[in-house]
């Protein structure tokens, strides 16, 4: 049987959703028999590959780099899953959204105890004006809210997908 190509992505989130994914414990062995994890923080691939069957995305779209990545990922994946509240609602990263980015950076990097401007400029992606849910930028096939979603909900979702069923998320998950 051909294995399903599964990817995971970590945008502006805390990695808690990936921790919840790892919390499926021994379930990951059964998963590994049916799916290859082809990209994500848990594996070594540098470039998001072509022809991915399902991608679980954690985190909000907060920077230009996040935006470039999610657009490339959308073009290369068949089913895109917004995993967790940051990807679904913006959640904690979006708490900065009522503050202009310049003011935010000034407050964080310029008004520290030394009063010296320590803002990094090289090699860091530009922040977008607001941190937003994935579906503000790309089509999302399945939304799984939760902070984080339970490992049970994640496993059920992946198993549904592997066995060709349409995932029933509905009232099994909640925000927060």
């Amino acid at each position, binding site marked *: 049987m051909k294995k399903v190509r599964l990817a995971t992505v970590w945008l502006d989130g805390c990695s808690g959703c990936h921790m919840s994914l790892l919390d499926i414990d021994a379930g990951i062995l059964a998963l590994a028999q049916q799916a290859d994890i082809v990209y994500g923080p848990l594996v070594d691939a540098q470039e998001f590959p072509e022809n991915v069957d399902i991608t679980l995305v954690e985190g909000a779209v907060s920077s230009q780099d996040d935006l470039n990545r999610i657009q490339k990922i959308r073009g290369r994946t068949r089913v895109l899953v917004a995993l967790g509240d940051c990807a679904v609602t913006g959640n904690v990263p979006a708490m900065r*959204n009522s503050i202009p980015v310049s003011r935010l950076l000034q407050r964080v990097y310029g008004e520290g105890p030394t009063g010296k401007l320590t803002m990094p400029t090289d090699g860091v992606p530009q922040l977008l004006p607001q941190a937003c*849910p994935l579906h503000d930028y790309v089509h999302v096939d399945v939304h799984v809210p939760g902070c984080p979603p339970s490992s049970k909900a994640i496993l059920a979702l992946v198993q549904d997908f592997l066995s060709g069923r349409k995932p029933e*998320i509905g*009232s099994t*998950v909640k*925000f*927060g």
Partner: protein
Amino acid sequence: MPAKVFSIRIDGELVKATEGQTILEAARAAGKYIPTLCYMEGLSAVGACRLCIVQASGTDRLLPACTTPVQDGMSVTTNSPRLAEYRRIAVELLLVERNHICSVCVSNGHCELQAMAQSLGVTHVRYPYNYPSLPVDMSHERFVLDHNRCILCTRCVRVCAEVEGAHVWEITSRGIQARLVSDLNQAWGDARSCTSCGKCVQACPTGALAEKGRSVEEMEKRCDHISALAMRRGVLA
């Protein structure tokens, strides 16, 4: 003169109701579930949240069950794909209007808005978030008002006016600018009419009103106590 007894149908089932009862009261008395957020048993009904909308024979308009009186012979539908869709829209619009960050909210896990979203199967919001910049009033000795979580249901306004008799709370401005205010738009800590009884906190369905010192997930409300108290005092005779 005793109230007239009406015969109505709720989801096809024949139910007895009394004149002057609302559709919601008649439905609950018959054991039927209609979702509500701004309604609180024992307080006056205002029809603010639109979660309790139902379909009734003779009109295409959807009617709020909490403020619509029963009429003899009426036939009411409490659930349908159309109603479910409008209820989801109502919840989604509440979620986009302010900053409902469930994961860091004192009421996470005990919030009626969060539970309503879950029970209606709202897994995401289809409208752009508003991300308003809103203050948190920490001036009261024991309680906190977080405008980010307020859904303007006015349960606090009504419990304070109708049960405590203090009428500290009111809504000022209109539409998207509407805000909960204490006394004459003073900080809560400066509101001299407040008796610090805490009924508003217990009646609040979200984390907008909370006890100080509560951390994430720690604020459990006792709405049942408030309703019991309101009923005992015969607020709605």
